[in-house]
């Protein structure tokens, strides 16, 4: 039983998109996924990559992924890592794959001198929240997320 984690390579956009869709489905948000393989190719491997992806393989089979990018804290004056998506195939849960993906990002933060690893979780996702708390992550309860997009964004921009 072996676990391998490595960066996604050009040509694996379909695999990454499949994981994104499975995660969205678990979150009951599949209807919001409009990204296609070309978008991911541009985001991950284009001339100015916007994000990074680690893939996990269990006995050689694709098992999960972590998609992340760098962010910046104006309070700390330092960059950090923001984890956008984390997913493990339902049949392969309980083997420590999610923790290994998180650990790899924590290792990267420490190696690169970055003080924080941050992410969001849906508040009904108790199993994940329990895992995150067990790893020492703190929920930042006092914060509310706002978003402006679509017609409201266009209107505000004018």
């Amino acid at each position: 039983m072996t676990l391998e984690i490595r960066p996604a390579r050009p040509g694996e956009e379909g695999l990454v998109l499949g994981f994104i869709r499975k995660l969205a489905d678990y979150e009951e948000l599949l209807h919001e996924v409009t990204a296609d393989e070309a978008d991911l190719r541009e985001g991950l491997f284009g001339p100015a990559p916007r994000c990074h992806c680690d893939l996990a393989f269990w006995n050689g089979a694709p098992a999960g992924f972590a998609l992340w990018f760098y962010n910046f804290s104006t309070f700390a004056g330092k960059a950090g890592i923001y984890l956008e998506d984390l997913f493990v195939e339902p049949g392969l849960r309980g083997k420590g794959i999610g923790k290994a993906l998180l650990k790899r990002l924590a290792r990267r933060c420490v190696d690169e001198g970055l003080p924080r690893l941050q992410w969001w979780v849906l508040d009904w996702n108790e199993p994940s929240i329990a895992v995150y708390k067990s790893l020492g992550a703190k929920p930042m309860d006092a914060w509310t997320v706002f978003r402006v997009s679509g017609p409201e964004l266009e209107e505000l921009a004018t």
Partner: protein
Amino acid sequence: MSITIRTARPGDGAILNAMVHALAVHHDYEAYFTASPEDYERFLADPHAINGALIALWNGEPAGCATWQRSYSTFTGREVLYLEDISVLAPFRRKGIAKALLRAVAQLAVARQAASVKWLMMGWNSDARRLYELVGATIEDGNCFCQLSGDALHRLAA
């Protein structure tokens, strides 16, 4: 009496640092504020920076700022502009400066072809909440923001 908004440039590190520090104090987060003007100068001088800032001037005098960073939505496969801070110095409040900054951030997002602008607000900040709803923002309920830092980050990285 006029508001102008301009892009922050090298040399603006000290004023930006002071304005974000004022925001940290206002939010009772001063203990977490360790950034220096040099940290700001570093990204202001970096042509490949993932973040930047806008400065609002009231009759030519620095009155407020918005700091932003590049983010990414895997669901849409497009950039999201993340608004990290919006700060208006106390003597310049209630002049429409925050709204002008939000509009400039929306214009920047549209120019960068970002699908949306996203930000966090502390739950108690009802004045800010009214403004955000006024400009068309929606509140994303059901999210929980997690952070791993300090000892917990090092423990997971080990």
